[in-house]
Every structure is written in C-alpha cells, then in structure tokens.
C-alpha cells in the first residue's frame, strides 16, 4: 500500500529525515516509536503533504501513485488520513459542516453524489457512538474549546467518517487520560479492516497495549534504526531508548 524509499526531508537548512525505508501492506498495523526530535512527526506531516518541508531525496509510492506529487487534499481523497497531534481550532466553522464537506469531497472523488444535511446527520449519529461523543459536538466550532481528549476523539470521528485506507495517528495518545485513551483506541480498532492499514506514531508504549502493532520501528536521528514485532515496544518501555541509540552508534562506528 505504502512504500517509502530512502526518504530525505529537510525544513529550511535542517535535515530531519535522513533516509527512511518503510513498506506497509494492507491489513497491517505499524508503530513508529522513537525519542523526541527523532523525526516521527515530520514523517507523518510529510506523508500528509504539509508545506514547508523540502524533499531532497527518495520516493514514496502510495497505491501505485507517486504520493509526493499529490496535493494534501488529493492524498486525503485517495484515502490517506492523518490524525493530528495538535488538532487545529477553527472558530466559526461548525463540526458538522467541516465533516460533511470533507465527506462529500471523498464522495465526489469517487464519482458519487454528495449527501445532503439530513442524510449526513443519520450517518454521523452512528459514527458518534463509536467515539462516545454526543450530538452537541456537531454544533460547536471545530475543536474550539475542546478538551485534549475531545480533540483526539474528534480526530477519530473524522477518521470514521472519511473511512481512509491508510491512517497515520500522530501522537494520538499524548494528553489523554486512560478513559479517553481506551475510547480512542477502541475506535481505531473497530475501524481497522483487512484492506486498511494503520501507522501509530508514538513516544510511549502505552497506546500499543490497546492498538496492538504487527511491526514496531524505532526512528532515531531521521532513520529507522531498528524494527521488530510488538515485543520491541515492551523492551523500549522497560529499557528506554538509550540502548537503541548506543546500538546504533556502534553500528555506524
């Protein structure tokens, strides 16, 4: 589904991604872990098409397309979804309008007719249950005044509405209490399917108790320095990142 080869990216003069290789197939759940500043969020942003990053080398193919050639909205319409680490507050735009506009863009892209407000309301009610949100959220401006947990649940609600093929969750666990974490993880798990893939970007192992990865990768200094199965995450939790750093230093010495 997604194939990243030797991806290099920089912001202004600072090179952040220094040769990422990663392949993700349908049905898989990948976790990308790593210490702060290792490039995890940059990787997520670059995949979603955030401006400001310069790709200096490498390629990303997504569903047989050159992902880097697509605008952010085109990536979204092709089924790529980024759950933001810091969801953006948008005063004056209510959540229903936001969700429906995005949903209808997806439909239009697939050659389907847009749905009207009434039909959309029916659809959204089902999705709300998934993240245990009540209808009053829909009338509120997007993320404005939402608590940290509400924002993250709102991200998963968007994921439920847009039904992406590849979901990238960027530090979705940050700032969540245990109940919100459980709701968010439960939502993500329910949305997962054999034809879909999930990438969980996280600093801590905690979320991976709920969203169990098939593969765990450690990103350090802009490269994936170690990959393994879910036991790698537990090992990192127990031993911290230092041993991976040291191992990496020895390898490059």
């Amino acid at each position: 589904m997604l194939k990243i080869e030797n991806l290099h990216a920089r912001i202004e003069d600072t090179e952040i991604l220094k040769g990422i290789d990663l392949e993700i197939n349908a049905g898989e759940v990948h976790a990308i872990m790593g210490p702060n500043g290792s490039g995890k969020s940059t990787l997520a942003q670059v995949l979603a098409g955030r401006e400001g990053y310069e790709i200096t080398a490498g390629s990303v193919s997504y569903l047989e397309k050159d992902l880097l050639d697509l605008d952010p909205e085109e990536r979204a319409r092709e089924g790529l979804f980024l759950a933001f680490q810091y969801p953006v507050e948008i005063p004056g735009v209510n959540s229903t309008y936001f969700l429906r506009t995005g949903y209808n863009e997806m439909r239009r892209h697939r050659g389907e007719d847009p749905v009207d407000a009434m039909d959309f309301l029916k659809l959204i009610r089902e999705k709300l249950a998934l993240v245990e949100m009540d209808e009053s959220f829909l009338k509120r401006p997007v993320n404005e005044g939402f608590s940290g947990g509400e924002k993250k649940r709102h991200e998963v609600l968007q994921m439920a509405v847009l039904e992406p093929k590849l979901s990238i969750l960027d530090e979705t666990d940050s700032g969540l209490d245990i109940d919100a974490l459980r709701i968010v993880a439960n939502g993500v798990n329910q949305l997962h399917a054999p034809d879909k893939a999930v990438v969980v970007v996280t600093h801590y192992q905690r979320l991976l108790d709920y969203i169990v990865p098939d593969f765990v990768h450690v990103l350090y200094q802009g490269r994936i320095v170690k990959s393994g199965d879910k036991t790698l995450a537990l090992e990192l939790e127990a031993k911290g990142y230092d041993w991976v750093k040291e191992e990496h230093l020895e390898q490059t010495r």
Partner: protein
Amino acid sequence: MSGTDWYQSRFADFEQNLNGEAQGPVHQLRRDAIAHFTATGFPTSRDEEWRFTNIAPLTRIDFELAAKTDEPATADIAPLRYGLPGPVFVDGHFAPSLSQLDALPQGVVVKNLRTAFIEDADLVCRYIGQDAMSEDQAFTALNTAFVQDGVLIYLPQGTVLDTPLHTLFLSTGTKANVVSHPRVLVVAEAHAEATLVESYGGLGVEAYLTNSVCEINVGENASIDHYRVQREAPTAFHISATHVREARSARFRSTSITLGGSLTRNHVHTALMGEGIDSTLNGLYIENGSQHVDNHTLIEHAQPNCQSHEFYKGVLDDESSGVFRGKIHVHQAAQKTDAYQANQNLLLSDSAKIDTKPQLEIYADDVKCSHGATIGQLDADAIFYLRSRGIGHREAVRVLTRAFAGEVLDRVRIDGLRDELDRLVTERLDRAAGVAP
C-alpha cells in the same frame, strides 16, 4: 473654484431655491453650518484624525447637488430592501411612491425631514445638529448646510416597533459628480424600542458622493438596534457620521457593514450620558480592488456603571486599504466603566494594507478597559487541516474567510438581512478565492 469656495457658491444657489423654506431655526442652523464649514474647510492628512485617509480625490471634484431624477422601478430596488418596509430616498430626494410607511404603531412618526421642519419644528430643533459644529466634523457641517430631505423617526415614550424599519438611500449614478446629503434623525423616548436599518445602495456607474449624517437619541431605558449597510457603487465616495446620545439605562447596538464605494469614511460617536448604559458597536468591512475604508469610532463614557463593547473586523484583498481608529474616552466621573474593544483584520493579499489604532483615554481610576488589534493572514495550520480532510485549497480559503466574517454577520439579528449579507459576502469571497494563488 474649489473646496470651500465652491460649496459656498452652491449654498447661495441652494438658499435661493429654498423659497419659503429659507427661514426659521432650521435655516439658521444651515447658515451656521456653512459658515462653520467655510471657516474650517476640508480636513487634510495633516489632521491627526485623518492621517491615514487621503480625501484629495474627493475634494478635487466640484460636486453638484444631485437633482431629482426619474425614480427607478420598484423591481430594480427590490434586492436592496431586504424585504423590510420604510422610507426610500433617491439621490437624496424623498421618494414617496417607493416608500412603505403604513402600519406604524400609534404615535410613531416616520416622515420626510423637510416636512418635519415645518410640522414638527420644535421636536426637530431640539435634537438636530447637536454635534454638527464640532471641530473635526467638516462633513457633518456640510451636510447640515444642505439639509433638506431625510428622515425623522420619532418613537414616543414606551412605543415598540415590532418590524425593523429600513431607510434606504439610493444613488442612481446616472449623472457624474453629484452629491447628496442624507440625514437621519432618530428620537427614541424613554422605554421605546426599535430595530432600524439605514442602508445605502448605488445603481449606476458615475462617480458620486454620499455625505450622510445620522443622529440617534436613545432615551432612558430605550433600546435601539441600528444597522448600517453600505453597498454604494464601486465609483462612489461615501462619508458618514453617526452621532449617538444615550440616556440612563439605554441600550444601543450598532452593526456597520461596508461592502461598496471606492473611498469610505465612517465616523461613529456614541456618548454615554447616563448610568447603566449598555452600548455595542459591531463592524465588518470587506474590501477588494483599490477600495479604501476608514472606520473611525469614539465611545465616550461620561457617567459611571456603563458598558461598551466594540468589535470590528475587516477582510482586505487586492490593493485595498483600511483604517480602524477606535477611541474610548472615559471621563473622570465614569467609575466602574467596563469597555472592551477589538479590531481584527485579515489581509488576503500582499498589497492590501490596514492601519489600526486603538486609543484609550482614561480619567477615572476604577475602570475595566481592554483593547486588542490583530492583523494577519489566514492560519496556515487551519488551511492544511482542512486540506488534509479532502477540502481543496480554494474551498479552504473560502470557508475560513467566511468564518472570519461570520463572527460579525452572525450578530445580525434580522434573518432576511443576515441571509442576504451572508450571500453577498460569500459571493465576494468566492470571487476573491477564484483569483487567489
């Protein structure tokens, strides 16, 4: 001839044609006003209050008083009426056949000022021109000198207008370089309540000047919700002054929407003359091309325990420019004043420009006053967020700009007016989004 000489000579002509109307206290007011105007002349950009607005393009033109023209068809003006009844003026002249003045509550008077000068001279003279001679109000003096047609809205004690009353000033724009001096006089006695719309529209292509003055007196416990909608032709100059006097426990709310004209200056002065007053000034200006809009406000807290809220927003595109100057003056007696002012501007192009200057002058020691001004572009994070949900760049820009303007539009409490303004603003923004990079 130019400037004051020109208007002095026009005044002589005007006076001659007044015949029987050139007498009495109102005419004395006119004479005083032209003398005042002649003495002070037009402001220049050397005047602090006019520093950021160059009116030379306007003062260079010798404007003739607009003559009475054929009234436009009712159908042509329908889109400018927002489905609301009230008097209509064409090129400054009262147009009875276009006006809708029936079904007013008992005692409420809505009539042409020219008639009121004769029939209600005492009432009119008590309230008209209270602020016309103030130093920095050359345009108000000029309006007063030529005052003739206009509207008197008189709400006796305790009367309530259930339907918003809409006064429409229409410029046909069929003849170049003409001026009209619309005048609105509102007297709301104690406990009276009304929603008033004062709007301006232009149909033609020729350059013209609208120089309007609105005076509103809000009596004790009276409540006035005032809307000002400016949709002049793109070639128009629009200068306006709104003078508001509020008595004890009055509520006044103003919403000023500027969409049209090439050069606009709106001056709003509210004087809070009693205790317990709640006063609100909302404003929205949407500009493109080479439009210039100057909103100049002065809120005067003269007595204790009053609140004022001011909230102006602007969206500026292309080469347009704007000015916001908001002064809050808290007199020494005005303890426990609670005043808030905000001015937020969105610049959609690199060439658009705004000068914003909040000003607090506080002479009382126990007050709560705050202000904030922002100038910015659309939030890049918000644009990316929308795009990452499949919403295209143009649509994202449109949605966010509409949301920005919506914060003022949503404060319009007349459904028909709000929907129409929403449609107009959205249309403008769609056009802007169409040319955005």
